[in-house]
């Protein structure tokens, strides 16, 4: 009996211990997931090679200690001559992995725990992470249709080549016949003139169809999500109408003349070398039209660029290969000073924690904005030039190392409102990199969320400030 009791006790203990460890590992995997999505998805996926290799079962392939060293600074490991490191570097075409020296050993361990957990789950659910194509029904359907399309496309491709060969042969034969007959078989002058007319009609038709079919995919179809964007859109439309009219008139004249004035072998061309009045006319009219566009453009440009607002919320956008951070100025609306020499040491952004202004700063991996609240972005780059592009807000500014840039604007449409407007429940605003910056350039993005005032406050409360006030005070006291 005693043994049984003891055994059951023991079982209980084991069970508790087991649940505890399970919970512990689940927790760290949860933390790992956040870290993974923030730092890894630009270059890696679990099951497929993206820019870097697939991470599935990486815990089986390599020692944990090695992985920690590699993730912190792969280049140092390669330079130290570590054979495995050199091999991995070579295998990936000598593309260098970003160093993550600001990640602690424990953080890397929880990252690895997450990767381990993901490796063990079946492939379908393992495609979590922002950058991997979402495993929604739509995506699967489109993938399927891609395969189906591509078969047709290959067929078209082969047909095109065969046609080309046929055309080449026929034209050769026609040339021979023409030589024998003494006059060309095809009257190219006539054929071309008719083709010019046909091209004009089909071309204009195709252009109209394009507008009908693809306008709905442009950012203009859903309207602008910022205040200056409305002005932008209106100016764009004016330019579109003016250039559209000119486009149609000139193309029609060009191809129509090509059709109408083809040589018939009898008529003589009109000798008409000059007409100063007409020339003056078509110098002055474009000049006037352009002046209108220039003046409007200059006014708008000035307005967009000189958008200083005392109430604007200061946010720093920080870019690195291959990701983004946002730093909020906190309650004092003052961003703490930073020093590029400290980047990656105390914190990832090199923010000076001794600066009082920095204490309430908040660093995030997503950009959250409050609707109708002006923001003033200050941009900073760690390594090379990036460009922060927010197409839905009509905002773009280069992010240049060593050269501070800024852009101020006011978001006017919340994410939720935009989702209803576009009728896309999964829509999210995005900030993406628009200046070539390396292999994972095409995945370098940050999710942007525009909240209502209440939601923004709620979200902000969940964020960690850079320096905890209590500890800061304590250390200040200790210093005193």
């Amino acid at each position, binding site marked *: 009996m005693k043994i049984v009791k003891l055994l059951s006790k023991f079982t209980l203990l084991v069970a508790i211990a087991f649940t505890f460890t399970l919970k512990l590992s689940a927790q760290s995997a949860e933390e790992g997931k956040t870290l993974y999505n923030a730092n890894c998805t630009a270059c890696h996926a679990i099951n497929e090679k*993206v820019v870097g290799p697939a991470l599935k079962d990486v815990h089986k392939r390599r020692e944990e200690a090695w992985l920690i060293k590699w993730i912190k600074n792969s280049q*140092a490991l390669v330079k130290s001559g570590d054979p495995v490191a050199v091999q991995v570097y070579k295998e990936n*075409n000598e593309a*260098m992995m970003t160093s993550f020296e600001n990640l602690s050993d424990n953080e890397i361990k929880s990252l690895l725990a997450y990767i381990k957990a993901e490796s063990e789950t079946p492939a379908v659910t393992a495609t979590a992470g*922002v950058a991997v194509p979402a495993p929604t029904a739509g995506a699967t359907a489109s993938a399927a249709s891609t395969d189906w*399309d*591509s078969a047709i*496309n290959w067929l078209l491709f082969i047909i095109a080549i065969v046609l080309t060969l046929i055309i*080449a042969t026929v034209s*050769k034969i*026609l*040339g021979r016949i023409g030589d024998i007959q003494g006059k060309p078989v095809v009257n*190219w*002058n006539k054929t*071309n*003139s008719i083709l010019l007319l046909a*091209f004009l009609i089909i071309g204009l038709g195709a252009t109209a169809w394009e507008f009908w079919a*693809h306008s709905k995919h*442009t*950012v203009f179809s859903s309207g602008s999500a910022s205040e200056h964007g409305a002005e932008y859109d209106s100016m764009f439309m004016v330019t579109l109408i003016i*250039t559209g009219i000119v486009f149609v008139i*000139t193309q029609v004249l*060009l191809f129509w*003349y*090509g059709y109408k004035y*083809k040589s018939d072998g009898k008529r*003589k*061309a*009109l*000798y*008409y*070398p000059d*007409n100063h009045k*007409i020339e003056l006319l078509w110098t002055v009219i*474009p000049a006037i039209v352009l002046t209108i566009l220039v003046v409007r*453009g200059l006014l708008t*440009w*000035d307005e967009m660029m000189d958008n200083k607002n005392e109430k604007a919320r200061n946010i720093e956008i920080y870019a*690195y290969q291959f990701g983004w951070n946002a730093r909020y100025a906190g309650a004092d609306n003052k961003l703490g000073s930073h020093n590029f020499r400290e980047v990656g040491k105390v914190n990832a952004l090199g923010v000076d924690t001794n600066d009082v202004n920095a204490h309430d700063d908040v660093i995030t991996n997503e950009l959250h904005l409050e609707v109708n609240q002006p923001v003033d972005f200050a941009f900073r780059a760690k*390594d*090379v*030039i990036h*460009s922060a*592009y927010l*197409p839905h807000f*009509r905002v773009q500014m*280069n992010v240049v190392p*060593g*050269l501070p*840039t*800024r852009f101020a604007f006011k978001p006017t449409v919340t994410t939720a409102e935009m989702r209803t407007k576009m009728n896309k429940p999964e829509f999210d605003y*995005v900030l*993406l*990199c*628009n*200046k070539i*910056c*390396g*292999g994972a350039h*095409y995945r370098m993005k940050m999710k942007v969320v525009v909240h209502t005032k209440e939601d923004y406050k709620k979200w902000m409360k969940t964020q960690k400030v850079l320096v905890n006030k209590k500890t800061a005070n304590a250390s200040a006291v200790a210093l005193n």
Partner: protein
Amino acid sequence: MSDHNLTHNHEEHEHHEDNFFSKYVFSMDHKMIARQFLITGIIMGTIGMIMSLIFRLQLAYPDMKFPFLEGVLGHWAKDGKLDPNFYLALITIHGTIMVFYVLTAGLSGTFSNLLIPLQIGARDMASPFMNMLSYWFFFASSVVLLSSLFVDGGPASAGWTVYPPLSALPSAIPGSGTGMTLWLAAMILFIASALLGGINYIATVLNMRTKGMKMTRLPLTIWAFFVTAILGLLSFPVLLGGSLLLVFDRSFGTSFYLSEIVAEFAGGIERTGGSPILFQHLFWFLGHPEVYIILLPALGITSEVIATNSRKPIFGYRAMIGSILAIGILSFIVWGHHMFITGMNPFLGSVFMLGTLIIAVPSAVKTFNYLATLWKGNLHLTPAMMFAIGLVSFFISGGLTGIYLGNAALDINLHDTYFVVAHFHLVMGSAAIFGMLSGIYHWYPKLFGRMMNETAGHVHFWLTIVSAYCVFFPMHFMGLAGVPRRYYANTAYDQFNVFVDMNQFITIAAILGGAAQLIFLANFFISIYKGKRAPQNPWNSTTLEWTAPVEHLHGNWPGEIPHVYRWAYDYSKPGAEEDFIPQNIPDAGQIDPMEEAVGLPEPSKKSVQEPVMA
């Protein structure tokens, strides 16, 4: 002008025997050098086009594997999947080849060399030796650039604009190592070639025109080549300087373009004090005139081809010269429109915007003048003419979108998107390529003494214009949806995935367009040997090159150089029997070639002699 000296030189030339090397390889004859430029340009163009097809495959089918790619590219396409880093290398080298090697050297090099001496009435270039050097520097540059495809890390991958710090730090990306060094070496050689050529063209046009060839009697082709050469001479040295500073930053630890870089690949050195934007200023100080270095020769060729084949004088000859000059001058004060959103002073942006939109005025004048030339013409729709009409169409389509991009405010949301890709591929890419093809079809008889197959030429034209529009026109809409250029795939963005079908359509059209170029290549190379023999003046043209014999001679004309009595555009002149009067035919009563021809523009005076062939 100094006619007699030249005749004398020419006689000396006849005394020495040509061996294979002096005739085909180290030739100093401008016509042979023109052929060398053209054929090298065509080879480079083919390579550039194949590269574009490879990355178009990736863009259209980001999830598919193409095992044949591994055979071609080796470790850059493991399992048939293109490496993202190599994708960047492909777009970089595609851009470099197309902009510099095809549309600068291939276009300007070919036609300036062929036409300047022949159309102004000179025996050769001012310095035939420098001319030869110009080609061989270009050749060496091409070899260096292509060799960079085979080095470790791959060729330069920072985009054809090679912005530092990406290009300045050798291990920033794989292509920034040896590949980038070779890119810079190739570019320095290329600039040497462009400068040697440019000086020569300018000197030749200014000093070696035949008697009676006043500047105001020059064909518009020569005006275009002349202004192009000046643009190149003034702007290429700036890129040379910029590139040298970049070499210093890369190899000698300077920091002209580097500041506050903390990335591990900065090599542990604190690089501070420089400005990455400085390079962009230096680059675009060349880069923008470069657009006109590409475009002006194409427009010059078009002017000539349209006038000849409309059998009409080009409308507004002086306005055309004026607009060439205006475009040339303005092109130097607009470079900043490539940099509106680099954070430069907004006021500076305003100035560049103003200059940019002013440039639209001379461009519009040129377009209207082309239309007026076609009006009531007697159009001979030869392949050259068709390509010239195609150029005007592209010039309109691509030029109009320049009004969006030149507007700093509108540029904010369009910068570096596919809208830009569409814009410059139409206005600079397709238009200039069409100008070049038009020139090839028109002057092929002069280049090779044979005719190209006309039917194949027309088929080539139609397939090319249709595919070019199918490739580039839809890209505008991708740009308006915010799709950035230089993305390896759009799969990471739901809102861009809707363009998957469009991307496939574009790729199919591009492959079709590529196949159409096979027709051209076959036509071009077969006709060199098997084409019909060319007559003296196949297009009944007025300009001097058609008075030279079909067979190529050192010195161009066997006897005295013809004198010029009239402008280049006496087509369908009332009273004349033929519908063209060559430039070397005097008017009745005109003895001195420098005299203004009798009754030139007034159609009422009927004092024209029967044209006699020289």
